[in-house]
C-alpha cells in the first residue's frame, strides 16, 4: 500500500495545483490583478453568496470535499485486526492534521472507553514493576486510594508504635535478650568469685582479675606468691576468659532470636493497621485481577518496613502529619497511572508532534532513596503510546523520519503488540541509578501517520517492514472542484476561521476574493485549493489592517491589501499557517 499509494500520489502530484501555483513573492504573474491571473472578482459574485458578512452564516470546521479520505479514515479506524493502522497522505499542513483529528475524535467519541493501566512495584528483589489492567476510568481512583491509605498509615503507625503497650513489649524483648546474657555472666561471676577471681566491668568491657577478700590483688602481692600458684590462677583466668567469650559469642544466635521476636511484634502491631487500611482498597477492587496479589505484596512490604513511617514522623514519634507522596521513602508504594482519562468518555485521540522515545514510550524519574539507599522510582510518566492505547495516536511522518531510533522502537512495539520500556538513554534522575524493568503493556491502538507523498516514500524506504503495519491509506486531496456547493462550503469555512480566531467578520466581497484566491492557488482550472492555512493567514492579516483603520468589518479592501502585502514579502515556510 505504501508504494502503491506513493505511485498514485506521484501521478497526482504532477498536476498538484499548489505546485502549479507559485509561492507568494516569487512570481507575481499569477497574483491578483495581473493580466495572466484569473481575475480576482471574475470567479465569484459576492451577491451569489447570499450574505453581507460572515457573521450571518454558520461557521464550519468541516473539511470541504475529502469524502473519500474521510471514508478511508473511518474504515481504518473501525476495522479490527493487526496491521490496520492508517497512513494519511496530504499536503503538510495543519488543515490535514485538523481534519484527521476532528474525524478521529468523532469516531472515538462513540467508541468504548478503554481499560486503564497502572504500574506498581513487585516488591521483590528484582525491583521490577508490574503492569495491572483496571476497568476504564478507575486507575486514578486506585492511585488516589493507595495514596490515602499511605497517609492514613503515616498517621496510624507512629501512634501505634508510640503506644505504651508496644513500647513495653519491645523493651521486654530487649531486656529478655540482655538478661539472658547478664544471667549467664552473673552465674559465671559467682563461680569465679568462689575461686577468688572477679569479673570487672570496665569502660572498655569485661576484664578478669585475681582477688583476695573481694579486692583485686596488687601485682606485687601476686608476684610474691609461688609461681605454681600464680600459674594456677592464670590458668583459671584463661578458662574464665574462654567462658566469657563463649557467652558473648552466643549473641549472634540470641540476637537473631531477638530480631525475630521484634519482627513478630512489629508485624503484629503494624499488620493490624496495614490490613485494615488495605482491606478497604481490596474490597473496592475485589473484581480486578492482579490487585489482590499486589495489595497482599504491598501489605507484606509495608509491615516489614513500618519503621519508615516512624522515621518519617520524626524522633520519639512526634505526631506530625506526614505527606507520603513527595517522600522517596514511600516511592515504592506509589501507583503510577499510565493512562489519561478521556474528559467526556470515549477512546483517546492523542497527537504527538514530537515523537521522541520519551514522548512515545514514557520515562522513569528516579529520586534519592536516602543515605546508603538505592535510588527510588519517583514517577513513571506515561508516553503517548500509553495515553493513546485503546484509541488513536497521530504522528507526523517527517518527525518520525527525523528520529530513526524511535521509528525502530515503534516498529518493534507494533510487531510485538506491546509497549515495552527499553530506553536508549538513561531515565531522568540520579546518575548511576538502576532502571527497573517495567512489565510490557499490551498495545492496542490505531497508529495514524500523516505526511506528504515524499515523506511516506522516505519512511517506507527507511523501514520497509512498516508497510505491513499500514494496511489503510487515506489520501486527502489538495483541491476540490468548484461548484455552488463547494463555494458555499468554503464561505462557511472562512466564517469558521473568523470565529475560531476571533476576527472581525469579513464582508461578502472579501469572502469572494478569498474564494478566488483559493481558485488561483489551485491553478485556475476550476478547482479550489484546500490550503486553508493560507486563507487563514490572509484573514488574520486583513483583520489587522481593518483594525488599524478602525473598521468593525474586514472589507474586500483589507483582503486585497493583505494579498498585496504578502506579495512583497519573501516566501515563508510557514505560509500555510494554522487555521
Amino acid at each position, binding site marked *: 500500500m505504501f508504494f502503491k499509494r506513493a505511485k498514485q500520489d506521484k501521478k497526482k502530484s504532477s498536476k498538484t495545483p499548489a505546485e502549479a501555483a507559485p509561492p507568494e513573492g516569487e512570481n507575481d504573474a499569477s497574483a491578483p490583478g495581473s493580466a495572466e491571473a484569473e481575475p480576482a472578482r471574475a470567479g465569484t459574485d459576492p451577491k451569489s453568496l447570499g450574505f453581507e458578512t460572515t457573521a450571518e452564516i454558520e461557521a464550519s470546521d468541516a473539511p470541504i470535499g475529502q469524502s473519500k479520505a474521510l471514508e478511508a479514515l473511518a474504515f481504518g479506524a473501525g476495522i479490527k485486526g493487526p496491521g490496520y493502522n492508517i497512513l494519511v497522505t496530504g499536503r503538510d499542513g495543519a488543515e490535514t492534521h485538523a481534519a484527521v483529528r476532528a474525524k478521529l475524535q468523532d469516531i472515538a467519541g462513540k467508541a468504548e472507553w478503554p481499560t486503564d493501566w497502572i504500574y506498581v512495584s513487585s516488591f521483590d528483589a528484582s525491583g521490577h514493576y508490574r503492569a495491572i489492567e483496571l476497568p476504564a476510568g478507575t486507575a486514578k481512583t486506585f492511585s488516589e486510594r493507595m495514596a490515602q491509605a499511605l497517609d492514613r498509615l503515616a498517621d496510624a503507625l507512629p501512634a501505634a508504635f508510640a503506644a*505504651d503497650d508496644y*513500647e*513495653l513489649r519491645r*523493651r*521486654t524483648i*530487649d*531486656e529478655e535478650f*540482655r*538478661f539472658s546474657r*547478664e*544471667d549467664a*555472666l*552473673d552465674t559465671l*561471676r*559467682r563461680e569465679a568469685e568462689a575461686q577468688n577471681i*572477679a569479673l*570487672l*566491668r*570496665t*569502660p*572498655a*568491657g*569485661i*576484664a*578478669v*582479675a*585475681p582477688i583476695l577478700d573481694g*579486692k*583485686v*590483688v*596488687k*601485682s606485687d602481692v*601476686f608476684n610474691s606468691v609461688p609461681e605454681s600458684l600464680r600459674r594456677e590462677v*592464670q590458668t583459671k*583466668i584463661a578458662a574464665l*576468659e574462654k567462658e*566469657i*567469650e563463649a557467652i*558473648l*559469642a552466643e*549473641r549472634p544466635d540470641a540476637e537473631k532470636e531477638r530480631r525475630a521476636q521484634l519482627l513478630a511484634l512489629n508485624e503484629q502491631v503494624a499488620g493490624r493497621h496495614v490490613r485494615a487500611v488495605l482491606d478497604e482498597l481490596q474490597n473496592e477492587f475485589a473484581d480486578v485481577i492482579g490487585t489482590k496479589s499486589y495489595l497482599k505484596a504491598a501489605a507484606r512490604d509495608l509491615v516489614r518496613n513500618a519503621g519508615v513511617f516512624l522515621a518519617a514522623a520524626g524522633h520519639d514519634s512526634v505526631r506530625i502529619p506526614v505527606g507520603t507522596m513527595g517522600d522517596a521513602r514511600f516511592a515504592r508504594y506509589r501507583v503510577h497511572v499510565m493512562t489519561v482519562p478521556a474528559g467526556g468518555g470515549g477512546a483517546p485521540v492523542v497527537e504527538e508532534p514530537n515523537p521522541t522515545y520519551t514522548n512515545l514510550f514514557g520515562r522513569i524519574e528516579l529520586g534519592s532513596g536516602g543515605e546508603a539507599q538505592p535510588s527510588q522510582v519517583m514517577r513513571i510518566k506515561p508516553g503517548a503510546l500509553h495515553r493513546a492505547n485503546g484509541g488513536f495516536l497521530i504522528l507526523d511522518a517527517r518527525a518520525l523520519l527525523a528520529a530513526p531510533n524511535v521509528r525502530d522502537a515503534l516498529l518493534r512495539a507494533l510487531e510485538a503488540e506491546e509497549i515495552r520500556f527499553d530506553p536508549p538513554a538513561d531515565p531522568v534522575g540520579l546518575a548511576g541509578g538502576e532502571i527497573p524493568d517495567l512489565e510490557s503493556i499490551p498495545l492496542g491502538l490505531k497508529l495514524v501517520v500523516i505526511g506528504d507523498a515524499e515523506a511516506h516514500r522516505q519512511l517506507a524506504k527507511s523501514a520497509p517492514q512498516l508497510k505491513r503495519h499500514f494496511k489503510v491509506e487515506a489520501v486527502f486531496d489538495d483541491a476540490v472542484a468548484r461548484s455552488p456547493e463547494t463555494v458555499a462550503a468554503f464561505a462557511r469555512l472562512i466564517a469558521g476561521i473568523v470565529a475560531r480566531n476571533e476576527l472581525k467578520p469579513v464582508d461578502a466581497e472579501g469572502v469572494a476574493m478569498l474564494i478566488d484566491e483559493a481558485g488561483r492557488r489551485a491553478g485556475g482550472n476550476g478547482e479550489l485549493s484546500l490550503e486553508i492555512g493560507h486563507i487563514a493567514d490572509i484573514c488574520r492579516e486583513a483583520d489587522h489592517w481593518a483594525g488599524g483603520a478602525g473598521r468593525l468589518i474586514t472589507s474586500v479592501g483589507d483582503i486585497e491589501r493583505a494579498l498585496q502585502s504578502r506579495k512583497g514579502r519573501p516566501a515563508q515556510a510557514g505560509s500555510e499557517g494554522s487555521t
Partner: protein
Amino acid sequence: MIAHVAAAGEGRGRVVLWLGSSAQTSASAIEAAMLVARAFQSEVESLFVEDRQFFDLAEFPFARVIGANGEGWQSMPRADLERKMRFVGAALQRKVADEARKAAVPFQGRVVRDDPLNAVAKACAENGPWNVITIAEPFGAGDETRLGQVFANVADTTGVIIAGPMARRTQGPVVAVVEQFERLEPMMRAAKRLAGVTGGDVKLMLAGDRLDELSWMEGRVRLLLGDNDGPSLETVLAARGDVVPIVEAARRHKGGFLLAQYGGQVVSQETSLRPLASALECPLLLVR
C-alpha cells in the same frame, strides 16, 4: 531517715549521683536524681568513681578486656585505661550537667579514683543531714549485693534510688508502699514532696503478708486520713519478697516514682530484687 528528707525547709541535703565506671547510665535514674533534688530544693553531686581496682588489674601482664559485643580480647595497658576513664568521666559529667541545667538544679561534678563504696561513703559523710544516693547504672544481675553494701556501709545515706532497665517514666503519680503504720507520716510527706515535681498525686499502698494486720493498718490509716481529699488508698496482700502485686499496681497507676522501704516485706534483703527492678517502669526510691 526519710523524715529528714521530708522535712520542710531542709536545704542542706544532697543527691549523690553515683556514676560507675562501666560507662552505662540509666536516663531514668539521672532524671530521678534531678526530681528528688528539685523536690527537696537540694543539689546534685555527680560522682564519677574511677575504680582503683581496674588500675591494679592493669598492672598485670595478663590483664585483658573484651567488649560487650565479644569482639575479642585486647590487652589493657594502664595508659589506655587512664585515657578511657578520663573520656568516659568527662562525657558522663557533661551529660549530667546538661540534665541539671534543664532541670534548673544546682550541680557539681566530681571525679575520684577510689574504691567505689568508699568514694560514695566519703561523699555522703561530707554532707548532711541527709543524702540520697542515685545509682546511675541500670540495675542489673548481681546488683543486690551492691545495694546491700550501700545500705550497710554508707551510714550517711537516707535512701537509694535505683532504676531498672525497663524504667522509662518519671512523671505521674508517686506510689508509696507502706508496711508499718508508724512510717506512714514520713512516707506520705516524702511522697507528697515528690508528687509536687512528678506532676501526679500520691497513691498509697499498704502492703503486708497477713490479712489481719493489713486490715488493722488500713483501718487506722483511714481514720487518720479522714474523709478529706487525701491520697488514694489500696491494700496489697503479698507474701514476703513477692513484688508482683507492687509492680502491677505501679504499672496500673502509671507511676512516675515508687517509694518503698529497704529491708521490709516487699524489698527484703534476703530475696532478689531482680523481679522488681527488671519490671518497674519508674525509678524506685528505697529508704531505710
